[in-house]
C-alpha cells in the first residue's frame, strides 16, 4: 500500500488541492482509507492528518472503516421510492445476505442508502463501487447478486447493466441546435471579446442553477478585478433530488458546455478551468476527459487556442457525495481539497474564489446556453421567453408521469402545458426545484415557468393522488438533515430537530402544540442559517403546511400532551433485566380520558 499511496501522491504532484482525487484512488483500491495511508499522505502532502480525516468524514463516499469489495448504494431519492426503492432494497438485502448499512461478514459486499443519484427517470437506481446502475428490478438484482457472489470484476459485468439513457423528450431552442466544436469560439473571436460579453448581457441570460444571477454581470465583475490570475468553474454537482439535466448535457452536449466555459475564460481572462463533476456521475468521467483531449487536438483548448492568443485548459474534479458542494463557495472549498463548508460572504467568489482568486462559477446549463448565445446573438436568445426570463429552461421531469425525461421549454410556459406533455394524471401536486424548491398543488397549474413566478434549477417531481404527501415531505426533510454540512447552529441542529419533530407527527406521536412547534422551528432554520441549504431546508414543510394544514392536523392525537417516544418500548431493557412481563411492567403511552 505504501508504494500505491506514494505513486498516487506523485501523480498528483503532492498537491493538497488534489486531496479528493487521491482519496478517491485509495478508496477505490482499498475500500476505505486506511490509517497508515492517512499518516503517509499527511507527510507527503505536508498537511495535518486532521485535515485528511476531516475530509474523509465529511464526504459520504470516503470511509475510515472498510466497506465491501463490492459497495452497493441505493438512491434514497423520493423518485426512486416512487419506483419501488424500498421493496427493491429489501430484495437486494435478502439476495446478498447483508443488512442495509452493513458490510457482509466475509467483507465481499456492503449495502447502504445514498442521496439522489440523478437517475430519477430510470430508477430505482444505485451505484456499485461508484458506477451507476439504473432500472433495478428483480431480474437485474438476481444477475448482480450472482456476479458479486462469483466475484466477477466490475469491468466484466454486462454493459447493459450500466446503460444510462438520455431520455430527451422535448427539444427547443438549445437542444435542437447543438453547435459544432469551435463554432462559438470562432464567432467570439471574430466579434471581439467585449462585444461578445455585450451579447451575453443583451441576451438577459441568468444563472440556470436556480438562483438566477445575471451571467454577464458575474463575468463582468470577474473581468474587472485587478488580480490577473482568474478561474472558470463549471458546477456539475447536480445534487438536488429530481435533477438530471446536467447529466444529459454532459453525456451528449459536453463539447458545447466546454465551449461555453472557454468563451467565458477568453472574456474574463482565465487560463484554468474546472469541471466539478458530482461523484455519482463517475460514469461520465473518462468520456469527458476524452472530449477534453479531443478539444486539445482541435486547438480549442491549450496554448494560443484558435490562434487567438488565449491560453486555457480544463481539468475535471470529482465530488464525493456531498449535496452542499452545489453551493458555489462550498464547491470551491472542495476544489481546494477541503471539506465542503460554505464560506462567509462577502467576499464573493468573483473577487475571492478558487485559491482566493477571482472565479466565475456557473451551472452546466448556463455555459451550454452561453456558448449558443456567443455563436448566435443576444437578441436571438432574448426574443424567446418572458420580460424577466429570457430563453428556454431545460427541465428534468420524473415521478408519476408517462414520459419522464428531459424537456426544454420557453420561459413563460404554463405548468399545465408541461404536465400534459409528460403525461401526468390524477395529480396531487408537484415539487418544483427539488426539495429546496416549492410544492404546488393541482389548483396552481396556470402558474408559469419563470424567475418571476416559479424559478427552478430544473427539477420537476410529479406526484399522483395515490401518494402520501407527508411521506414525501418526510423524505425531503431527512435528506436535508443528512446533507447539512454542520457548520452553523441553526442548520446543524435545526435540520435534525425538524426531522425528529416531523417524524413525531408522521408516526402519530404528535399532539396539539406540535404543528406550532414545527412552524416555529421552520422559521428559525430558514431565517438564521448560514447558506442556501439551511435557508431552504424547511421549504417542503412550509409549502405543504400552507396548502394542506388539515393533513398535518389529522395526524395529531386529541390530547394536550403526548410523549415524543414510545414509553412502553423504552422499558424493554428493564423488563428483560428484571425478568418480568406482567401487566405492571408495561406502560400505556398516555393516560386515556
Amino acid at each position, binding site marked *: 500500500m505504501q508504494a500505491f499511496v506514494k505513486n498516487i501522491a506523485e501523480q498528483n504532484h503532492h498537491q493538497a488541492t488534489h486531496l479528493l482525487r487521491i482519496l478517491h484512488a485509495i478508496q477505490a483500491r482499498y475500500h476505505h482509507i486506511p490509517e497508515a495511508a492517512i499518516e503517509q499522505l499527511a507527510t507527503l502532502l505536508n498537511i*495535518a492528518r486532521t485535515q485528511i480525516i476531516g475530509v474523509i468524514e465529511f464526504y459520504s463516499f470516503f470511509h475510515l472503516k472498510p466497506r465491501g469489495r463490492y459497495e452497493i448504494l441505493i438512491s434514497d431519492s423520493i423518485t426512486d421510492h416512487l419506483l419501488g426503492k424500498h421493496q427493491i432494497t429489501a430484495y437486494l438485502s435478502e439476495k446478498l445476505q447483508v443488512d442495509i448499512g452493513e458490510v457482509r461478514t466475509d467483507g465481499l459486499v456492503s449495502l447502504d442508502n445514498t442521496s439522489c443519484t440523478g437517475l430519477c427517470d430510470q430508477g430505482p437506481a444505485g451505484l456499485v463501487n461508484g458506477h451507476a446502475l439504473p432500472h433495478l428490478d428483480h431480474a437485474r438484482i438476481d444477475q448482480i447478486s450472482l456476479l458479486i457472489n462469483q466475484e466477477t470484476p466490475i469491468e466484466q459485468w454486462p454493459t447493459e447493466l450500466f446503460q444510462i439513457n438520455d431520455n430527451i423528450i422535448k427539444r427547443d431552442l438549445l437542444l435542437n441546435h447543438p453547435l459544432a466544436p469551435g463554432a462559438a469560439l470562432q464567432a467570439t473571436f471574430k466579434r471581439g471579446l467585449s462585444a461578445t460579453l455585450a451579447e451575453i448581457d443583451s441576451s438577459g441570460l441568468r444563472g440556470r442553477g436556480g438562483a438566477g444571477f445575471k451571467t454577464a454581470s458575474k463575468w463582468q465583475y470577474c473581468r474587472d478585478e485587478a488580480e490577473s490570475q482568474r478561474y472558470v468553474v463549471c458546477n456539475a454537482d447536480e445534487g438536488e433530488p429530481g435533477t438530471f439535466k446536467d447529466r444529459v448535457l454532459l453525456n451528449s452536449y459536453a463539447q458545447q458546455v466546454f465551449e461555453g466555459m472557454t468563451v467565458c475564460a477568453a472574456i474574463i481572462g482565465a487560463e484554468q478551468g474546472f469541471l466539478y463533476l458530482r461523484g455519482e456521475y463517475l460514469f461520465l468521467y473518462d468520456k469527458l476527459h476524452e472530449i477534453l483531449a479531443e478539444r486539445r487536438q482541435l486547438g480549442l483548448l491549450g496554448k494560443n487556442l484558435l490562434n487567438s492568443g488565449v491560453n486555457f485548459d480544463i481539468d475535471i474534479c470529482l465530488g464525493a457525495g456531498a449535496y452542499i458542494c452545489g453551493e458555489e463557495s462550498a464547491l470551491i472549498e472542495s476544489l481546494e481539497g477541503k471539506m465542503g463548508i460554505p464560506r462567509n460572504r462577502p467576499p464573493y467568489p468573483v473577487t475571492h474564489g478558487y485559491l482566493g482568486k477571482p472565479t466565475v462559477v456557473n451551472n452546466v446549463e448556463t455555459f451550454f446556453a452561453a456558448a449558443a448565445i456567443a455563436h448566435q446573438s443576444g437578441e436571438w436568445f432574448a426574443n424567446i421567453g418572458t420580460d424577466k426570463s429570457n430563453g428556454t429552461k431545460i427541465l428534468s421531469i420524473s415521478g408519476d408521469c408517462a414520459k419522464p425525461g428531459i424537456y426544454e421549454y420557453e420561459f413563460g410556459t404554463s405548468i399545465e402545458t408541461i404536465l400534459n406533455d409528460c403525461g401526468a394524471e390524477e395529480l396531487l401536486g408537484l415539487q418544483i426545484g427539488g426539495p429546496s424548491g416549492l410544492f404546488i398543488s393541482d389548483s396552481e397549474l396556470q402558474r408559469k415557468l419563470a424567475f418571476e413566478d416559479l424559478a427552478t434549477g430544473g427539477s420537476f417531481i410529479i406526484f399522483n393522488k395515490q401518494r402520501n404527501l407527508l411521506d414525501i415531505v418526510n423524505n425531503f426533510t431527512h435528506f436535508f438533515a443528512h446533507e447539512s454540512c454542520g457548520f*452553523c447552529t441553526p442548520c446543524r*441542529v435545526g435540520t435534525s*430537530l425538524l426531522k425528529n419533530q416531523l417524524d413525531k407527527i408522521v408516526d402519530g406521536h404528535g399532539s396539539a402544540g406540535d404543528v406550532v412547534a414545527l412552524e416555529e*422551528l421552520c422559521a*428559525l432554520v430558514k431565517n438564521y442559517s448560514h447558506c442556501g441549504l439551511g435557508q431552504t431546508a424547511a421549504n417542503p414543510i412550509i409549502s405543504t403546511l400552507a396548502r394542506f394544514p388539515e393533513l398535518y392536523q389529522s395526524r395529531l392525537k386529541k390530547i394536550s400532551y403526548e410523549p415524543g417516544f414510545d414509553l412502553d418500548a423504552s422499558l424493554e431493557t428493564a423488563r428483560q433485566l428484571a425478568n418480568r412481563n406482567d401487566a405492571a411492567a408495561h406502560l400505556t403511552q398516555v393516560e386515556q380520558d
Partner: protein
Amino acid sequence: MTKTIRIDGNTVPFEDGQTIIEAATAAGIYIPHLCHHPEFTPHGSCKLCTVNVNGRNCSACTFPAMEGQEILNNSQELQADRQKITQMLFVEGNHFCPSCEKTGNCQLQAVAYHLNMLDSHFPHFYAHRELDASHAEVLIDHNRCIFCTLCVRASQEHDGKDVFAISGRGINKHLIVNAESGLLKDTDLEATDLAAHICPTGAILIKHTAYKVPIGERIYDHQHIDQVSLAAEQNK
C-alpha cells in the same frame, strides 16, 4: 468625516475593514456571541451574533460595516431567536450546568442567562459523546463541545500549532485532535497554550484546578456577560 452605521437607532462610527461586531464593541454595544473572538479570524458559525442589516439577517462577526447600514441588534425578535439558537446548542450536546466544573465561568451558560433562557425548549438529543482524559493536564469532555473552533483557531493562529480540528458532517460533527492515536496526550498541546484555555464552554478544561475558585466567586456569578465581554474585548 467619520463613517457611521446605525445600531438600534444609535449612530456608531466605524473604520474601513471593521466588521459590525467590531464597530459595535468599540462603541460599547454588546452583540451576543460565542464563536467570535477579537484576536482570531472570524468564523460566523454559532449565529448568535445575527443582526438585521437593512432588512436582512447577517452575522455581525463576519459582515463588514458599511455606510448606510440600519442595524437591528437588541430587538425582541432577535433576542427571542438567539435564545432558541442557544437552546439548540444545549440540546445538541449534554450540558448539565450544576455538575459542570465550568459553571459560573462558562460563556454558554452566561449567554443563556443573558438571553433569559429558562429551559431547553427543544427535545434533547442525548448524544453519546466521549471523554478524553489521557492528557496529564488537560481534559476534553466532548459532551460540551459546541464546534465554535476557538481552540482550533487559537492553536493555529496563536500557539503556532495545529492541535485541534472539527471533523464529520451535520449533526455528527466532532472535535478531533492531531495525533495518530487520536488521543490528546499524544499531541503537542501544553497546558500553557491558549488553545487549552479558550473554550467558551466546559469542553476543554485544565485539570486539577476545578474548584480552586469556589462557586459564587466566579466570573459570571456577579457580572453579566455583556459587561465582561465588552470590558475584555474593548482592550483588545
